[in-house]
Structure formats: structure tokens, C-alpha cells
């Protein structure tokens, strides 16, 4: 499995990280190094093995489906880079 610049650009896009075109060859090379290392996993016989979902065999606790928190709009917005009139503000997303 080898990653080319097009794939590297696609991954960067999916991850929503801007990568300048001139940085793509080096990035693709780094990915290939790491994936080459990961590739060892294909040697392992995993036939019939369940993928791990929880490392400790615990049943998740249940609770009543009810509101136990809230009414803290100021606190929630206090760290926003741009908050106006009680809302998070972002660039226009609809035409």
C-alpha cells in the first residue's frame, strides 16, 4: 500500500487540515513510513477474533433519561472566538 500525493491531499481534506501543495510529497512519504510500520499487523492470524470494543468487561451504567443540567449559556459561550447575541458566530454557511 503506497500513498501518493493525491491520496495525501484527500486525507488532509477529510481531516479538515489545510496542507500547502508543496508540503504534500513529504507528507505522503511520512504516511508511507508509518503505514509500512502498521503493515506488520497483516501477519497476525485474526480469524475468528472479535475486535475489542471495551477493554474492561463492564456493563455501562444506565440512568434516567432526564435533563440534569443546563441554563448556562454565558459559560458555554465564554470561550468562543466569536459569540454574538447568545450564539456562536461562524462565516455564512447558506447562500
Amino acid at each position, binding site marked *: 500500500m503506497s500513498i501518493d500525493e493525491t491520496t495525501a491531499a484527500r486525507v488532509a481534506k477529510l481531516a479538515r487540515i489545510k496542507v500547502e501543495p508543496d508540503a504534500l510529497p513529504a507528507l505522503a512519504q511520512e504516511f508511507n513510513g508509518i503505514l509500512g510500520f*502498521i503493515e506488520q499487523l497483516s501477519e497476525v492470524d*485474526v480469524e475468528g477474533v472479535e475486535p475489542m470494543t471495551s477493554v474492561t468487561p463492564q456493563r455501562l451504567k444506565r440512568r434516567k433519561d432526564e435533563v440534569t443540567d443546563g441554563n448556562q449559556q454565558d459559560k458555554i459561550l465564554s470561550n468562543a472566538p466569536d459569540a454574538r447575541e447568545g450564539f456562536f458566530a461562524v*462565516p455564512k454557511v447558506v447562500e
Partner: protein
Amino acid sequence: MSDLNKLGLAAARDALRSGETTSKDLTEACLAAIDGAGALNAFVHHTPEIAMEQAAAADKRLSEGDAPAMCGLPIGIKDLFCTKGVPSQAGSRILEGFLPEYESTVSQNLFDAGAVMLGKLNMDEFAMGSSNETSVYGNAVNPWRRGNDDAQLTPGGSSGGSAAAVAADLCLAATGTDTGGSIRQPAAFTGTVGIKPTYGRCSRWGIVAFASSLDQAGPMTKSVRDAAIMLEAMCGHDPKDSTSADLPVPDFEAALTGDVRGKKIGIPKEYRMDGMPEEIEKLWQDGIAMMKDAGAEIVDISLPHTKYALPAYYVIAPAEASSNLARYDGVRYGHRAKLDQGDGITEMYEKTRAEGFGHEVQRRVMIGTYVLSAGFYDAYYNRARKVRTLIKKDFEDVFAQGIDSILTPATPSAAFGLGEMTDADPVQMYLNDVFTVTVNLAGLPGIAVPTGTDRQGLPLGLQLIGRPWEEADLLSSAYALEQAAGFVAKPDKWW
């Protein structure tokens, strides 16, 4: 009393309770040590006002005879823990200016037990690193040096600031977190003790998430006894973390008998790596001899999937990180990039994350994105989760044979120089976690104990791995190892 900052938790606690000293004096001694240790770059946010207030409150409690476990003891908190009203950046530019409106459960537990917070400690960005060189604050520096060589060494990572601060006596102890070895490797590099408890012992609530199925908090201390005291104060059930275990927390300190007679200590043959330095091999053999002399039975064991732990980790951890770090979008908190005319929301995300995340974090988020993407999910992510099942089964099999704990080296080398790995392949850096990462994948408790030094006088540590939920027994075995090794060396002050 002089040099109060050099005390450990147990000694300081006893001195406080007997009235020999006060929390105010202890705290002032630590604050003075921190002021004089800028060169180590361990403390990155200083909170002297909070510390003095907490110290005054602790002295009042002590005078009233109400002295919980950590009462009046000054500690440092890793920057990964959200602390109310105090910068909590996870070592990242993307959380610049973030002031949490809440307190992490672990730090709250410590404060409830009377602990005093001196400030926040340096770390690798989002805990991704093994040398503290990916931090937005710059490198933390190991107080240890190679003899008279003044080359700066790494304190390890990701809890590098915590390790440096404890080793240099800037605080009595510190919190750390461990996803693949981030408590145990820095502890080994600095001659300190670090324990990662069983997954679920400490609540993860309010700790900035890296890889949620692997992350655990733990103490970094000057002795095994201190680790027992502090771990007990940190852990416990928390309804706010659904993976936090609803199990009673034992009295870890009371369990420190150091009696290992009849205990079966496993020595896994797969941990004898090709090219392992002779000094590490000797350290390990010495540790085996010490446990044997103390009355333990040494048993050769096999953990056949060990070799695949690091590759599985470098699928699972980046996959979880890519999902966890999706929240840094420049909308709700932290950094937002300056936008150009006509930029929409996608450009905002992409520019914000390119500016806010450092190189290693970007790399891991993208690897995680790749292994989770359509067409590769089965080949990489599901396969890695199956291998993880096998790694955990390796441990279950040896525990079923009656093994009580497993003794291994903590790291493949002593602390290396800052910048020495800059041009190396990222995989070379990942190999630092080769002995520790299996423990996270299996959810087990593991502790690093300093047991010797290398030719250049740098500390080296061994790791003991315990059965799930049996930290009390693990700490007691670690106490036996600590007593036998008698490691008392401290770095000469140059900073």
C-alpha cells in the same frame, strides 16, 4: 525545616500533621524553587495566588484536626487537566486562551483531599509525543545530565513537565496521564515513580481527550509510598465518565507491606528486544535478582503478540484522536484563524486546524482519518482492534497461570538529548513506548520504579505490570523493588 520542597508527600504529610511545618511554608518553598527553575520550562502556567489560598485553607483544616490524605501538599497539574479559570491548553496553540468553566474530576478529587495547586505543567501537544518536544510552550528539560556534559536531555513525554518538576523538587508530586507510556517513560527518564492505574480507575472527565479507550491519569511522585497516597486520592467512581469503574478504592498505602514471598513474577521473553542496550538488560537481570532475593518466584512467560502492540497502537490511538480532535473547529473555544475575503466555513476549519495543531498532531489526526476512511476501516482499524483482543488475551493467559505481576524494563534506553531525534523517522520515536504500550492496550495497571543508573549517571527504571484492579498488590511489589534497589540519586542542581 529546610529544603521543604525536597520532601515527598508522605514525609510532608507527617510533618504537617505533627505541626513541624505548615502548608504555607511548604508552598512558599515550592514557589521559590519554581521561580528559580525557569531553565527547565516545567511549569508553564503559574498559579501562586491559588496555591497560597489553598495552603491557608489547608493550614486551617490541619489546625482543626481535619487532615485528609493530601491536605496542604503542593503539587503540579499536567496541562491536560481542565482546571477552572486557569489556562488548560494541552500543550497546544489551538487551546490558547481557553479558560475552563469547570474542574476535572481528578483535580477536584485532589483539591477535596486538600492538595495545593502550584501551576500547570508542560507536556507534548495533546499528549502526543515521547520527548516533550511537540509542546507549544517549547521543550521541558530534564534536570538530569550526562555527567559533566551540559547537553540538554529530554525528560520524556508526554508528561515531561510533570517528571522534570518532580525530579527537580519543584513540587512534591504531580499528575500525569498515560495513553501509551506517557507517565511511565518520563518517570523512568527522571528517576521518579509513575503509575498508570487500571483503565477505569481514574475518571477521565475534564481531561482533554487523546485516545479515550487508552487514556488514564495517574500520579508522578518521589517514591512508591507517595504514589500509593496520591493515587488513592485521585481515583474513584465518577458518574460523569461512563467508563469509570464503580468499585471500592482500597487503602493503597496500608497495603504496602513489600512482602513478595511466594508471589509469582513473570518475565516475558518477548521483551528481550533485538539491539537492546546491555545496560537495560543488566538492569532487568538485577531487578529479577532483587525480586528473587525478596522471596518471589521468578517464572519465564510468553506474551506472543507483544511485537504487534506498537503497530496496533499506531492505528487505534490516531483513529480515536482524529475523532476526539474533530471538536477543535474554531467555533466553541480556542484559536480561530484569521479569514480572507470570501472564505467560508470549510476554509475556517482548515486554516484554524493548520495553524492551531503542531506537526505531530496533524500527522496523527491524518493517519487516524486515513485508517478510518471508507475502504481501509476493515484492513486497518478493525484488524488493529482484533490484534488488541489478542494482546489482552496474552496477559489473561499468564494471569490464569497464576502470575501475580510481570517485570520488564520501562524504556529501551536512558533519556536522550533534546533534538537528537529531530531528523529521525517518526517510527523511531514511537519505539520509546515499546515496553509500556501493551499495558494500555490491555487496560492493565503498570508502574515505573527507578532501580539504577547508566554509565553516564542517568536514571533507569523497571516496570511492573499488575492484574486488573490489583493496584494495591502491584504497589506493594513495587515497594519491595524500590526497597531492594535503594535508588536515592538526585540530579545535581545546574538550573
